C-alpha cells in the first residue's frame, strides 16, 4: 500500500517579537517541521517497517526555502517528496483551508495513495481542518484527531482511536482510502540518523507548479483575508515576585505554608 503524508514547514516565533502589518517581523521567525506532521511521518515510516506500506510519499506546499524541512522527513524514512509552489502563492498571508484542499487534492489524485496522514493542525495557523476537507473533497473516509492506529489494516479497514476531550478515546473503524489527522503522542518520532540524512540528499524531490497538477490559480484564491495581527492584551493581574531565585523561592514557600498545603 502507498501512504502519502502532508508535511508543512511552520514558522516559529521567539518569545519577544514585533509585528509589522499582518506579519511577525522576519528577524523573530524561525522555521521547523510542523510538530504534528512529525508524528504523521513517524506513523507512516513505522507502517513501512512493519511491511504494511510499500511506499511513503510526502507532499508539501511551500517555497524552495522549505526543502531543508522536507529533507528531514526524507531522512526519517519517507521515500520521496513532492513540493508544490507557484509565483501566485508568494506573498499570500494566509492560505485558507479551501485553497490548501484544492492543491493537496490534486496531488493526492495523481499519487493515488491508500492512506493519507496529516498532522491534526499546523503550529502556526492552527486551522486543524485541511485533512478532513481534503478527504471529503476526494470522497475518502477520514478520522480527525487520531492517537492510535492499528497497523494490520485488515480488509481495507483502519481501526483507530480518536482522542476526545476529558480523557476519553473513541474506537472507530474507517474504510480505506482514508485521511487520518494524527495527534501528537501517537508514537515517538525518531531523530534523523546521519545515514538517513545522507540518503535523503539523494531521494527524489519533485517540484510542481499549480499548472503541473491541473490547479487553476483562481481556484486557490483565499476567501479569508487576514486584516490585523496583534499581541493579545495581557490580562495578567498576577503578583510578580522579584529578586534572586532564593528570594522568589522563599516567597513561594511562604505562600504554600500560608495555604497549609506544604510544611
Amino acid at each position, binding site marked *: 500500500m502507498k501512504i502519502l503524508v502532508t508535511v508543512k514547514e511552520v514558522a516559529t516565533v521567539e518569545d519577544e517579537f514585533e509585528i509589522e502589518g499582518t506579519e511577525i517581523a522576519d528577524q523573530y521567525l524561525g522555521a521547523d517541521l510542523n510538530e504534528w506532521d512529525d508524528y504523521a511521518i513517524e506513523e507512516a515510516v513505522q507502517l513501512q517497517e512493519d511491511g504494511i506500506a510499500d511506499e511513503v510519499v510526502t507532499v508539501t506546499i511551500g517555497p524552495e526555502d522549505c526543502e531543508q524541512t522536507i529533507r528531514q522527513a526524507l531522512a526519517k524514512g519517507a521515500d520521496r517528496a513532492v513540493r508544490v509552489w507557484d509565483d501566485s502563492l508568494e506573498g499570500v498571508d494566509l492560505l485558507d483551508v479551501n485553497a490548501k484542499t484544492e492543491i493537496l487534492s490534486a496531488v493526492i489524485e495523481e499519487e493515488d495513495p491508500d492512506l493519507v496522514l496529516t498532522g491534526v493542525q499546523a503550529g502556526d495557523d492552527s486551522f486543524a481542518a485541511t485533512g478532513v476537507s481534503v478527504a471529503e473533497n476526494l470522497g475518502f473516509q477520514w*478520522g480527525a484527531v487520531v492517537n492510535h492506529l492499528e497497523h494490520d489494516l485488515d480488509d481495507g479497514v483502519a481501526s483507530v482511536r480518536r482522542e476526545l476531550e476529558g480523557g476519553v478515546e473513541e474506537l472507530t473503524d474507517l474504510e480505506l482510502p482514508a485521511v487520518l489527522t494524527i495527534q501528537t503522542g501517537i508514537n515517538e518520532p525518531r531523530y534523523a540518523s546521519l545515514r538517513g540524512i545522507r540518503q535523503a540528499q539523494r531521494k527524489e524531490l519533485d517540484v510542481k507548479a499549480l499548472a503541473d497538477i491541473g490547479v487553476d490559480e483562481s481556484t486557490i484564491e483565499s476567501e479569508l483575508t487576514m486584516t490585523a*495581527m496583534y499581541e493579545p492584551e495581557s490580562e495578567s493581574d498576577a503578583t510578580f515576585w522579584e529578586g534572586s531565585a532564593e528570594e522568589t523561592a522563599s516567597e513561594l514557600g511562604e505562600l504554600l505554608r500560608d495555604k497549609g498545603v506544604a510544611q
Partner: protein
Amino acid sequence: MTDVLAITDHRRGDLRDVSYEIITAGRELADETGGDLHLAVISGTVDDFADKLNRDGVDTIHTVSHGEEFNHDVYTQAITQLYDELAPQYVLTPNSVNGLDYAPAVANQLDLPVVTDTIDLETDGETLIATREMYGGKVETTNELEGDAVVTIRSAEWPQAEGTGDASIEAFDADIDEDAIGSTVSGFEEVGGGDVDISEAELLVSIGRGIEEEENLDLIRDLADALGATLSSSRPIVDNGWLPKNRQVGQSGKVVTPDVYIAIGISGAVQHVAGMKGSDTIVAINTDPNAPIMDIADYAIVDDLFDVVPELIEEFQ
C-alpha cells in the same frame, strides 16, 4: 439568508457545555444579521436534548434522530440537508474534536469557506469578522470573509445561555444514505487510570516543556516529594512518554481543581488552561513574562526553573 444554524455537541447521553455556549454565540450573530437562530441536535436522545437546549434566544430546534452517538457521516449529511432547507448565512459548530471531524467536510461539500477555532465573531450582515489565534496563542488575528461560511467556536469563550426559551422544536427528517457511511464507532474507553488521581490532589506540581530533558524530571520529583505534592504535567511530557497519561492536565487529560497549582515551565496553551483554570491559587514559574500562563496566574516567578526549584526544595527539606 440571514439566519444562523448552530450545531450542538453531546457524548454518551450528555450535552456538552459548548452546546449552551454556541447558543450565546449564535444569538449574538443572529442579532447582528437580523435573522433567526436555529439549533440542530443530531443523534442520541434528541427530544430530551431539545428540552434542555430550549433556552433564551433560540428560535427553532431541529432534531435529527439517527443512531445514538456521533458519526461524522451522519452529521455531515444531516447538516448539509439542513443548510439546503434553511439557507442560513452561517453554520456554527463547536471547535471540539467532533466539530473538527465534520465541520471541514460540511464546508467542502457546501463549497463554503471554513474558519476554525474562533474566539470572537462580528458581522454586519455581509462581512464576517472572525478573531482567532496563531502561533500557539502568541498573536491574535482578525480575518474577514464575505457571504456564507462554516465557523467553529472555541469552547469557554462565550457564556452559556440560560433561562427557559420558547423555541419551536421540529423533527427534521434527514435522508441519511446508509451506504455513504464509511465509519463505525465501536466504543469508548476512558484512559489514564493508574496509580494516582491528580484531580483529588490539594497541591499539584505540574511540569511542561521547560523541563527540556527526561533526566531533569528527577528534580521535579524531588520537589513534589519535598512539598508532599502530587506530580502532574502538560501534554508534551506525556506525549514524550516521560509521564503516564493519568498525569496529564488539560482538555484531553484531567480537569484539576487543587488549592494550589504550581505550573513550572508551562507556557499555558489554551488546551492546558482548560484543565487547570479552576485551581484556587495558580503559581507560574517561567522564563517568559508574556507566556499565556501569566494571564491566569495569581503569582509568578519570571526565572529559570533550574535556579528556582532547587532553592524551593532546599527550603522544605
